């Protein structure tokens, strides 16, 4: 709440301060301010020493490399689900990279501009194995737990109404409270995005006693967002994301980036800044994408490092595989 009032005050009093040119103010600050979750394994999660990891974090680092050639020129601002949009509006950070679902209302009526999709997700349910439930359709009369400020509340309501099932939903302010309530048995099922559930499951007393139901009840394209009305900043952020995806498609990774500088493929040469002046058009150097990939890897590497099958989350690529590998991850070409 405190942040809401703070930001409200900011909106009221400052009015125009935050709507200036974001790239200029970022350059002047010397770092990017990146709004992230308060701890979502695989997406944005601080370790004991305060180092942030996850794909949402790596995306902000990629933008930092593009501008400052230094992945550490990012200041991470943890913010709750409920406060994230107001905080972005009030100028508390420059990019919101907070596993945020791209929806029409947020895009159109709440003054946000979504950059693209970094993770295709969908809402699911987690239940105790001992409940003997194997489908969301068998949750008639169940009590659900979720967190406030997400699309999950509405999706759950839609799903249960559409299937004429009875339900009760308890909404908690903090992730820790919602997990504690589910773990204590206050509710029969926890519901949020499947990727979130996979992370939440690890925080339970006995993760092995719980399963994710196979049902996916919604479309949740998660991605970074910025304030509406700053085209230049939007372009820079958007094409940073596209560069990561295009690099994977072209086989350019952190390991192969140097060797690929000698590639004869025109697409690779354009991506790495050997041909054309694409970086300059964004206000960057022409080797911007090369620098990002060299330091942080392409989309696939970031995915595997954050949430992939070798991480505790063990999420297979699924929908997030490239469009030519059975998924729907697709980026417009750099040309």
């Amino acid at each position: 709440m405190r942040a809401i009032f703070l930001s409200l005050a900011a909106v009221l009093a400052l009015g125009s301060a935050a709507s200036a040119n974001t790239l200029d103010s970022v350059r002047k600050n010397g770092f990017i301010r990146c709004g992230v979750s308060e701890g979502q394994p695989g997406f944005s999660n601080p370790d004991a020493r305060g180092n942030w990891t996850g794909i949402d974090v790596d995306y902000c680092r990629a933008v930092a490399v593009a501008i400052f050639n230094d992945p550490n020129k990012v200041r991470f601002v943890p913010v709750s689900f409920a406060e994230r949009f107001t905080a972005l509006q009030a100028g508390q950070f420059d990019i919101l990279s907070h596993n945020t679902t791209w929806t029409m209302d947020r895009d159109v009526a709440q003054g946000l501009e979504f950059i693209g999709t970094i993770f295709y997700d969908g809402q699911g349910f987690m239940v105790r194995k001992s409940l003997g439930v194997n489908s969301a359709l068998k949750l008639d009369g169940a009590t659900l737990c979720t967190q406030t400020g997400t699309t999950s509340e509405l999706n759950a309501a839609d799903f249960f109404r559409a299937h004429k099932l009875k339900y009760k939903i308890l909404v908690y302010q903090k992730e820790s409270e919602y997990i504690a309530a589910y773990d204590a048995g206050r509710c029969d099922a926890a519901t949020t995005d499947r990727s979130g559930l996979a992370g939440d499951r690890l925080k339970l007393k006995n993760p092995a006693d719980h399963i994710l139901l196979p049902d996916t009840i919604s479309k949740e394209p998660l991605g970074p967002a910025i304030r509406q009305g700053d085209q230049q900043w939007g372009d820079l952020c958007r094409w940073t994301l596209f560069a990561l995806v295009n690099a994977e498609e072209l086989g350019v990774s952190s390991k192969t980036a140097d060797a690929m500088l000698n590639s004869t493929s025109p697409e690779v040469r354009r991506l790495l800044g050997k041909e054309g002046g694409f970086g300059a058009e964004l206000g960057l150097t022409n080797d911007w994408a090369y620098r990002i990939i060299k330091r942080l890897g392409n989309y696939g590497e970031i995915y595997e490092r954050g949430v992939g099958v070798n991480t505790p989350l063990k999420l297979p690529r699924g929908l997030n595989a490239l469009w030519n590998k059975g998924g729907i991850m697709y980026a417009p070409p750099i040309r």
Partner: protein
Amino acid sequence: MVQQRARHAWWRDTKWQAVFYQALVLLALAAVFVWLGHNAVEALARRHVASGFAFLEKTAGFGISQTLIAYTEESSYGQAMWVGLVNTLLVSAVSIVLSTLIGFIVGIGRLSSNWLVAKLCTVYVETLRNIPLLLQVVFWYFGVLQTLPGPRDSLHLGEWIVLNNRGVYVPEVIFQPGSWFVVAALVVALTLSYGLNRWAHSVQLRTGHRPPVWWAIPLLVVGLPTIALYATQVPFALSWPQLAGFSYEGGLQINPELAGLTMALSIYTAAYIAEIVRAGLLSVARGQREAAEALGLKRGLSLRLVLVPQAMRVIIPPLASEYLSLTKNSSLAIAIGYPDLVAVFAGTVLNQTGQAIEILTLTMAIYLTLSLITSALMNLYNRAHALEGFA
């Protein structure tokens, strides 16, 4: 004096000057608010954020776990606001009653001549008012109520009460057609008994003899409703809590969210009320107690007839502030998922619509109204009890 004042021009008159400057300050303040409002509307428009109150009519689409008034997912955001408000009122009202009861007991207990009772009450006050309320809310909810067994291993207290981590379940009385007749009979019986008692009391005051009405009151209170029950062929039924599917259904359910919040609010506020009560009792001149003793009144009677009525004059004004804080503190509900006004309206609705300014303004206005109403009621009560000229 009159002539002297007449010689001054009216703008030199201090009384007029005071009014003038106050009006000026008020105008300036109004101008600041108008400017802030205008600025906000402009800033929102520039950032392409919707503004205005039209959203209150839109469909809410989400569910609420405790609804005392009609609400479904198809209801409007405005209706969701009312649901939250009623939940706030419920938890505040119950907690105000409980905290007052506990507070009076502990406050009087601290002055007890019994060493153990006095020390226990001191420990109560010093412990509970020094632990932050949020911790107490979380403790009662997660530390106590959530450690109860699940629905399938529920505790049964006798045949009537079922207790588990989903709440307390008791059989619910279902009012069937004709039940209003029985209720009306009960109300009539109670009113008649009250009148009868008042009359007997006044006769006793006048003549020293109490008319023998003691038998009439139970006869009225039991008799009239019984006749009504018989005439309407018992229009009540009981709905029993039954294990169905995931949890218990039927009966009257008290959620652990409501119970936990009520416990924390009542127990915490009671510590403050106890101190107010103690201060009130100590403010009564010692001669009053001694006089009561000299008249031969026992301790209980002297408390009830002599000390507490006089102490109330000191107790009521700070008590009103405690009630106000309690109502506002109930917004900690959001920590444990109780759907109060802040959780539902300034939480979910704000997040779905993004209209922070409108929603927070409305929420603040509602809390202000609640506080002003509570204040006004307590002031009325205070006026009725205050000494002449001290109201």
